[in-house]
């Protein structure tokens, strides 16, 4: 086995990485263009006025607040439900365990349009009016698995003995949870929460089915993409959305370094 990669492989790998990242940089560039009607490259001139314009656009703020609210509530619910599920599944062997795993994975294994359409059907059948909570219902459902994955990966890495050791030394179940499980699980849970927040904040596929007339920031963006008004303003918002997802992801990465929690299973 060669210890050095061939130049072809190196180039292909590096090229692949660049392919993944360069497009995002363009978003930043176009936020400063003076051309607002087309995506002409290179931009004919540069300006920072769009940030002020975006700040003063009143149609941006309500979707932003709604997105933050939905992401915050969904994250909290997903953290509670995902942690409980992971705690139950980490070590226990019981009848139907595989089916439960499948049920937890299903909301991300099946395309989002199905989750969206299903919820939409259920709201229709039950005559539930659209509200913040109908959006949260969908978001929390697909965020559970993210927290679950982070938590269960950490639990598997933890030596099972430390929970027994705690009980052996006289701690009751609640003391064991507070003094042993939580400190060892904390960063993985926080990472899961960060990723859930990032995912919820920019989710659009399920949301369009569960939002009715409400507009989250991604829905606002989608409308701008389909029927553009001031294109650079969309870029400014895109930068905000990108930052709002980028920062939690970085934090999640640093919280779980050395583990494999964030690898493998995606959204």
């Amino acid at each position, binding site marked *: 086995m060669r210890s050095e990669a061939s130049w072809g492989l190196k180039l292909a790998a590096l090229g692949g990485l660049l392919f993944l990242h360069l497009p995002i940089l363009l978003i930043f560039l176009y936020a400063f263009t003076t051309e607002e009607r087309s995506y002409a490259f290179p931009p004919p001139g540069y300006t920072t006025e769009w940030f002020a314009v975006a700040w003063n656009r009143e149609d941006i703020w309500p979707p932003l607040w709604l997105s933050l609210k939905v992401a915050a509530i969904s994250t909290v619910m997903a953290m509670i439900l995902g942690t409980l599920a992971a705690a139950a599944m980490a070590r226990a062997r019981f009848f139907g365990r595989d089916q439960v795993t499948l049920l937890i994975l299903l909301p991300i294994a099946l395309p989002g349009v199905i989750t969206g359409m299903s919820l939409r059907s259920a709201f229709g059948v039950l005559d539930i009016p659209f509200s913040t909570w109908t959006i949260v219902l969908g978001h929390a459902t697909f965020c559970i698995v993210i927290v679950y994955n982070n938590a269960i990966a950490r639990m598997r890495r933890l030596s099972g*003995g430390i929970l*027994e*050791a705690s009980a*052996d*030394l006289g*701690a009751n179940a609640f003391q064991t949870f507070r*003094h042993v499980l939580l400190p060892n699980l904390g960063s993985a849970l926080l990472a899961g929460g960060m990723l859930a927040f990032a995912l919820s904040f920019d989710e659009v596929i399920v949301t369009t089915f569960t939002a009715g007339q409400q507009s989250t920031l991604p829905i606002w963006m989608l409308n701008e993409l389909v029927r553009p008004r001031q294109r650079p303003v969309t870029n400014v918002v895109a930068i905000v959305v990108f930052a709002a997802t980028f920062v939690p992801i970085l934090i999640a990465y640093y919280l779980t370094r050395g583990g494999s929690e964030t690898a493998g299973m995606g959204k």
Partner: protein
Amino acid sequence: MTAAVEFQNVSRHFGPVKAVDGVDLTIAEGSFFAMLGPSGSGKTTCLRLISGFEKPTGGQIRIFGEDVSNTPPHLRNVNTVFQDYALFPHLNVRDNVAYGLMVKGVGRSQRHAKAEEMLALVKLDGYGDRKPAQLSGGQRQRVALARALVNQPRVLLLDEPLGALDLKLREAMQDELKALQHKLGLTFVFVTHDQHEALSMADSLAVFNEGKIAQIGTPRDIYDRPATRFVADFVGSSNVLPPDLTRALGGPAQWASLRPEATRLAATGPVSGTVTALRYLGSGTRVVIRAGGTEIAALVPAGQPVPTEGATTAIAFDPQALHLMGAI
């Protein structure tokens, strides 16, 4: 005197697997008791039955006379030194040791003082601020010991505590554990698969085989008079003789054991065989003779003539040394 631990016909079955099957056992207070057996023989399950991490599917367990069928692990004043130590990775050594006191509600300064005292007992003074990850295997083992002792348990359970240490460290720790047990006067229950460790450390020991106790006794009892063929095979270096060979040697048709030291070579005798291996041991030579289908070892003291490999020789022995035993 009350027994520290008492098993009455205790079983622990996992479905069709009988991990522990009808065990009767009495561990005297203040003794150093070893549970010896190959892996899967039920010795670790027995230990976990005492600590409460397993529940018996049959029978009764008493700790200092009290039935513990309904007592969860955290209310049993019994502590364990785990095989992989199970130190809390997020706590430093001092807080690891003080953990048992913390969950009992002992104040910070008091429990830290007590923890330091325990660390001194296991010769780890000054290590309180380190994290478990910064310690060597031997040091972790001592922390685990200090942590288990801080609660002043009535019984200390040790699950293969020396298994992960290298030979030299293991021998040093054997002496230290023994001394510690003497000093504290505590009941130690020690699980091991290493017969030398069990024989050299324990006051009495139980040999486990397939979920049952094959024999309980002092190390000498078990070494000299193995009750069954399994014990003789597992514990000793004794020759195990099948019934027909025992009879040929003049005994009844039963399984028997015969120590190599008590076995001699002779010119003629009822049983003879071919010398298949020779091993010089300094104090003598170990000669292996193949007679029928059985290999029999004899220890020829230094200075006596030693046969060559392939030679034919007969076997003689002191009749009192022939020890009869059960078949299992």
